[in-house]
């Protein structure tokens, strides 16, 4: 088991400085993702799951932390200890990428989509080669007219298209792990399902591991093999998806499932709309 571990996080601590005291956003968390596995992290908003996701790929905001420690082993290398230059090299070489909840804010509004995807590719390519590769990535992310999309600016795309553009950027380095922070929460219901299907296809076709952070247990049930439940910066439990839904070990988990079921109970109109 441990030989095939892609990501192995041990005792990760992220304590933020706040106006009065310290916020223990991530407070001693262990987390593993095996190669090709799809893992979910669920919890209410503010439980520290987004901070955890960003910490895992070393994309935390650049502020002073009260405490920032732990081990993040990716493919055997402790990336928490890597120098900036080594980290940059790793990011560009089949390692890990991340996509975000609000795709508009995570795309540069003043640049066209094409170059934004292109600059994520390694630099030693000819211009035509880069363009073809960008189009291939956009197509793989589910955008059917890549040549048109590449010339567009982010604000000219729909929410779903933007998320796909962001996915294309993330795919550029052929990552073995994709971390997705609330990848569908900002999208319409139908678009949510389509983006979800795309993620599942990429997971299967590329054998790419997924680490999905969400408050949406429905999404987790659709996609994930294994689920972590997080509360107030700590992991409450971890189980495979069937065990978790059938016999939650923790009352908090049971309540999350119940709340989510109530929210997602389909009404006739709802089904008609889809």
């Amino acid at each position, binding site marked *: 088991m441990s030989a095939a571990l892609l990501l192995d996080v041990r005792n990760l601590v992220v304590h933020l400085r706040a*106006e009065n005291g310290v916020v223990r956003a991530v407070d001693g968390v262990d987390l593993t993702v095996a190669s090709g596995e799809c893992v979910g992290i669920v919890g209410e908003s503010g439980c520290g799951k987004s901070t955890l996701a960003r910490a895992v790929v070393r994309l935390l*905001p*650049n502020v002073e932390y009260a405490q920032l420690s732990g081990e993040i082993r990716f493919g055997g290398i402790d990336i928490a200890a890597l120098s*900036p*230059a080594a*980290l940059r090299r790793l990011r560009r070489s089949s390692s890990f990428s991340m996509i975000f909840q609000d795709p508009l804010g995570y795309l540069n509004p003043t640049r066209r989509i094409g170059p934004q995807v292109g600059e994520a590719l390694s630099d030693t390519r000819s211009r035509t080669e880069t363009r073809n590769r960008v189009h291939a990535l956009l197509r793989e992310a589910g955008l059917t007219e890549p040549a048109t999309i590449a010339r567009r600016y982010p604000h000219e795309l729909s929410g779903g298209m933007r998320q796909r553009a962001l996915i294309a950027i993330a795919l550029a380095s052929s990552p073995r792990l994709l971390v997705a922070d609330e990848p569908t929460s900002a999208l319409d219901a139908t678009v949510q399902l389509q983006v979800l299907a795309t993620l599942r296809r990429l997971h299967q076709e590329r054998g790419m591991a997924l680490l999905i952070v969400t408050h949406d247990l429905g999404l987790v049930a659709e996609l994930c093999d294994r689920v972590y439940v997080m509360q107030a910066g700590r992991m409450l439990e971890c189980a495979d998806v069937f065990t978790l839904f059938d016999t939650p070990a923790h009352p908090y988990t049971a309540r999350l499932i119940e709340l989510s079921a109530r929210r997602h109970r389909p009404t006739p109109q709802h089904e008609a709309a889809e």
Partner: protein
Amino acid sequence: MTAFLRRIARTRHGPIGLAILLVLLVVAICARWIAPYDPKAQVGTSLLPPSSAHLMGTDNIGRDLFSLVLVGTRASLAIGISSAFAALLIGGTVGVLAGYFRGVAEAALMRLTELFQILPVIVVVLFAIALFGANFWLLIGAVALAIWPLEARVIYGQFVQLREREFVAAAIVADLPTSHIILREILPNALPPVIVQVALDASLAILIESGLGFLGLSDANTVSWGQLLFTAQDFLDSAWWMSVFPGAAICLAVVGFNMLADGLNEVVNPRAVRGAVGLPA
């Protein structure tokens, strides 16, 4: 009030700004007693360089420059602070009317504000002085005329925002008089960013006043730092001290107000100041 001062004292620039302004204030009030010589009398040979007898030297007609700079504090601070408050009064009224009543008043007043903001400050002031001449009160009026749009924008923004809040809706439903809603309900909540702006405006007013003085357009009967620089312009080759010391005094006052504004901003708006800066590797 003491609690407020204590909070300013804990900010990065606040205490320095406060200290500078306190010293200047004391100097302004006590100038006559602190000054070693009568600032208007000829007390030595003209154009003497700084020495122990004349700390900042003497000017072209033999007056003691140190005494003149001390006395000049009064005019500069008085015009700076009064203009800032006059601007608060004009800008405040415009901002409140536009922000609370909206509609046509809003459109007209904010267009006017925009126009005044587009016109170059110094030209507005110069034009007013060219036509009406310069005495102390006109000077304050002219400087206030130039900086009121800044206040109007801040207060307008606050009112537009606060007007939509529940406590205002409650007051309107309770049928309280409009003047009560504006003055008692909204105004106190709108003040914090306005205070910061007043401090910034005071520094701007001091700069404008010194510029007018330098152009020889300030009130000829009061000694001010800018006016000292006006005289200095003709003696740059022979008396560097006539330019250096009054100019440094202006800088000190402007830095003081700016640092106070920085401190106030940090107290009023702590989040924005401590935001993340720097690009990680």
